[in-house]
């Protein structure tokens, strides 16, 4: 039967190939080649080692389903069992319900915990939708403009070894033109459909649903990869991979002027809001054609601003997407061209208040606007200039010119901002005995106290809450006096507009393998990588800049993507007199920080991590999720900080990053409201093991990478837990332990006044210990933990099982010194090691 299936699933001409002296049968490597035999053959020929092929049981899954990729998910979910929040006990997902699952299984057989997992999957699916839709529109537009044969790449320095990893790892495709992207996106859309269905009708186990939630994140990262390839290949987005790698320490230059204070007064202002950059592309091309670029201000919050910056350096990035409502109510824009995005926003309502004109471009309607896509452009321009508030036009080619000409034709707008006197007057209505606004505020801002203070002190009293407010409006809903709190906040924002200026670098796009390999030589002088994502909207808008400065200043290789780059850019080092992106250079190396780009550039974080499997261990990523994820998780993938408001999209992104091996720290408030945490338990020794891949020997390790998804409350907690998560069995070189243990202990003591409770488990030799603390810590090891030390050396170490071992014995029995190459599951050891394990009775 198998032979019959193989004939159906593999082109007989392409099924067999040679690698060195070894004959390879693709049908032994994968169940179904899904028509990508040529790509798999090329990847094997160029990227595989013959010895590795012979030693390991590699399995490839082209166009993988969630259930194809269970090996790594099993490792993760076993070590970090999901902890669900906000438990819902009643399921009403079908017309047989409602079923109260606290009283037992539902009519479909679903239990309470799997139901929570199903809800978790649902959040992830919802989080994917807007970016899937936007990417579909973008790809369709590109195909229409350039044809399916249009070549695509991430830049000249990419080749088959590192091209579009986020796509190749799931599909096996070597992406070279738009038709490949069409197939990749169709695959992702089909996956999302299946996942959505399961999120409403699935009756699997917790593992089944979480496997699908992870998969949801993986396909979202794939879709972001599709979007980035189209942007770079068809729309002129600048890319570091097209530049000489030797110029990357200062490219792209810090030449993007951001902030509301940099918008030149007197010029017409067009703002672009949402995920879709095409209307901006169209408008800017029109301005360039007419020689008008210097006479207009093009502004954008968030992801679209970061996209525009990659092809138009005159853009003013005003802030993050979740804060867009605040900027709009400030009235800075004459015309707003809006599309769907990550955040819910009453664009029509906000724009109307300040007489900004809205052009809505997304496929679905907005606020009952009639679809006027086919109306003549002149008519639309006349209507908007003549007094119409908004139009819905789905034709992005048309929208650019309309936006420019409407902005040109408007005669000025009224001033709707509250004066300082009016703010004081409104503040007087605030009741002494009421803080319902504080209760309602998702950032727990002490709004009432600030408003009461404003009665005397005016706008300056409101500045701290203005900076922490992302304009959700819940405070106003609760206020019994109907005080227009958000108008007060916008008035406070207006006061600081002149100082709201910063400089940033635009996104560089992907990181090619030659830079990744080059950076390897500097990493021995660094605690590690630092990756930050943020959507803005945290209680203190300066957190992200503070974190980026701390990590990069301490020698990390820092990458940042999405709206977080805008927040980081605001950090100003007074001593150096420089903004963050001026202070640090930007190559892919230690003590450098790079912005990768807008929201879709988050995919490059996964790619930069997973490339290490190819660069360091020579494992090809084509359809080879399991091996790559195993290596990425235990060796390279650093913790990622996700900071701020965190719309549902970030839930899916986090799932994808976790699955490839990252640990996610999410804060300061939003993470606690996420549907599940994935936290480990360092006291439970049964969880902390690796297998020597050569022999199959099981070795206990330190509880490194203790959590893979943990919410934190403050930036200091984020910083400290980050250093803690850098402890990992993979860091078996003492210098790497020293470099990560030093800041971990220092931060813990500085911010919390004690030694961490787990530091002793990360020590394997005296040279792991921070140099300045060595004597003190050795004393602590001796007196508190029962180690045998003498002077500055360790004579005998205490194993966690209580035995006192010589250093040689300890190195053999604890951590990875003698496990030359190891895996977190016996399923990924060599064929020879598997034989050993079977002889010992393990079913594998």
């Amino acid at each position: 039967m198998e032979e019959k299936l193989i004939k159906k699933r593999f082109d007989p001409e392409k099924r067999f190939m040679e690698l060195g002296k070894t004959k390879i049968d693709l049908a032994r490597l994968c169940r179904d080649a899904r028509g990508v035999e040529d790509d798999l053959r090329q990847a094997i020929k160029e990227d595989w080692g013959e010895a590795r092929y012979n030693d390991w049981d590699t399995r490839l899954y082209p166009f993988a389903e969630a259930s194809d990729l269970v090996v790594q998910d099993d490792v993760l979910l076993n070590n970090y069992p999901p902890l669900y929040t906000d438990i819902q006990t009643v399921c009403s997902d079908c017309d047989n319900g409602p079923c109260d699952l606290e009283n037992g299984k539902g009519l479909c057989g679903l239990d309470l915990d799997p139901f929570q997992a199903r809800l978790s999957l649902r959040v992830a699916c919802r989080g994917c939708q807007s970016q899937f839709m936007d990417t579909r529109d973008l790809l369709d537009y590109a195909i229409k403009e350039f044809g399916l044969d249009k070549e695509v790449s991430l830049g000249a320095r990419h080749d088959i070894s590192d091209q579009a990893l986020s796509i190749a790892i799931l599909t096996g495709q070597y992406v070279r033109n738009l038709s490949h992207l069409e197939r990749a996106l169709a695959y992702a859309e089909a996956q999302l459909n299946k996942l959505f269905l399961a999120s409403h009708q699935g009756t699997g186990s917790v593992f089944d649903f979480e496997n699908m939630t992870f998969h949801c994140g993986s396909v979202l990262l794939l879709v972001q990869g599709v979007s980035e390839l189209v942007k770079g290949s068809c729309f002129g987005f600048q890319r570091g991979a097209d530049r000489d790698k030797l110029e990357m320490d200062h490219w792209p230059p810090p030449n993007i002027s951001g902030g509301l204070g940099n918008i030149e007064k007197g010029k017409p202002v067009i703002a672009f809001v949402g995920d879709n950059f095409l209307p901006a592309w169209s408008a800017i091309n029109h301005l360039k054609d007419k020689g008008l670029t210097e006479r207009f201000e093009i502004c954008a919050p968030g992801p679209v601003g970061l996209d525009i910056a990659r092809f138009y350096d005159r853009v003013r990035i005003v802030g993050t997407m979740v804060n867009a409502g605040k900027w709009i109510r400030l009235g800075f824009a004459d015309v707003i061209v809006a599309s769907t995005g990550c955040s819910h926003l009453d664009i029509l309502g906000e724009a109307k208040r300040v007489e900004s004109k809205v052009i809505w471009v997304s496929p679905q309607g907005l606020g009952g606007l009639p679809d006027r896509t086919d109306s003549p452009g002149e008519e639309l321009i006349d209507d908007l200039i003549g007094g119409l508030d908004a139009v819905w036009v789905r034709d992005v080619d048309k929208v650019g010119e309309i936006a420019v000409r409407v902005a040109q034709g408007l005669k000025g707008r009224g001033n709707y901002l509250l004066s300082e006197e009016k703010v004081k007057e409104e503040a007087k209505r605030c009741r002494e005995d009421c803080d319902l606004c504080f209760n309602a505020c998702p950032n727990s801002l002490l709004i009432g106290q600030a408003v009461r203070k404003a009665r005397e002190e005016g706008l300056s009293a409101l500045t701290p809450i203005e900076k922490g407010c992302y304009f959700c409006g819940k405070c106003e809903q609760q206020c019994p006096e109907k005080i227009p709190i958000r108008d007060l906040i916008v008035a406070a924002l207006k006061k600081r507009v002149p100082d709201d200026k910063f400089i940033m670098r635009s996104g560089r796009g992907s990181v090619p393998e030659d830079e990744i390999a080059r950076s390897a030589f500097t990493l021995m002088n660094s605690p590690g990588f630092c990756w930050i994502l943020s959507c803005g909207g945290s209680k203190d808008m300066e957190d992200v800049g503070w974190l980026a400065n701390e990590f990069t200043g301490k020698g990390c290789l820092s990458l940042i993507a999405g709206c977080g780059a805008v927040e980081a850019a605001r950090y100003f080092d007074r001593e150096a007199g420089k903004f963050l992106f001026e202070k640090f250079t930007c190559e892919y190396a230690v003590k450098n920080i790079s912005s990768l780009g807008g929201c879709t550039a988050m995919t490059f974080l996964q790619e930069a991590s997973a490339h290490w499997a190819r660069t360091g261990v020579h494992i090809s990523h084509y359809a080879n999720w399991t091996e790559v994820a195993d290596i990425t998780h235990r060796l390279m993938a650093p913790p990622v900080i996700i900071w701020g408001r965190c719309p549902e999209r970030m839930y899916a992104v986090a799932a994808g990053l976790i699955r490839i091996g990252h640990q996610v720290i999410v804060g300061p408030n939003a993470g606690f409201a996420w549907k599940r945490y994935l936290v480990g338990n360092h006291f439970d020794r049964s969880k902390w093991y690796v297998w020597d891949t050569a022999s199959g020997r099981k070795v206990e390790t330190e509880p490194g990478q203790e959590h893979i998804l943990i919410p934190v409350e403050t930036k200091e907690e984020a910083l400290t837990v980050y250093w803690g998560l850098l402890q990992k069995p993979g860091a078996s070189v003492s210098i790497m332990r020293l470099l990560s243990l030093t800041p971990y202990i220092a931060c813990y003591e500085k911010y919390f006044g004690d030694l961490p409770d787990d530091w002793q488990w990360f020590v394997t030799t005296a040279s792991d210990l921070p140099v300045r603390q060595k004597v003190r810590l050795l004393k602590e090891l001796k007196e508190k933990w029962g180690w045998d030390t003498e002077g500055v050396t360790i004579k005998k170490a205490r194993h966690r099982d209580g035995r006192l071992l010589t250093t040689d014995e300890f190195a053999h029995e604890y951590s990875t010194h003698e496990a030359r190459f190891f895996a977190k599951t016996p399923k990924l050891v060599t064929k020879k090691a598997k034989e050993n394990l079977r002889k010992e009775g393990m079913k594998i």
Partner: protein
Amino acid sequence: MSEKDPRKLAEHLKGKKVLLMAGQLCEEVDFGTKKLVDYVVEISNRIGAPIAATGNTPLSLKAKGAKTVRKMWAAEVANYMRWPWEDPVIDEKPEILVLIGYGPATAQGLASAVRDGETMVLGNTYVKGATYSLPESPSLGRWQQALEEMVQSLA
């Protein structure tokens, strides 16, 4: 849980193994005459309960005279509640976690995640995911009053 009277909530702590959790709002909420962190210390000292100090609270809790304080991460505490207890902040698994200093969404997330044990939230809003919770306080003053009543009832 319908019980919202602070004095009656105090009754629920008596005779139980209590672990207090102090969150970052303890550092930020100032009632004028006292800070939120002061109430954590008072409750801890009155009932001899240790404090899992989350956020940046460990230093100020110690400075205010709390006797048993240990830095922990809030999600860790909720996680440990589903396994055999090993963290040295308290010698056995707590029967009840008392959360102070967490915003409503954070408290709801944490309290609802605790499956093997009771929770009590002493916050400014009612938290439905908790076993016990103070009611919605329309003002900081009313919240402070509830905390005062709670503390006095523990005497």
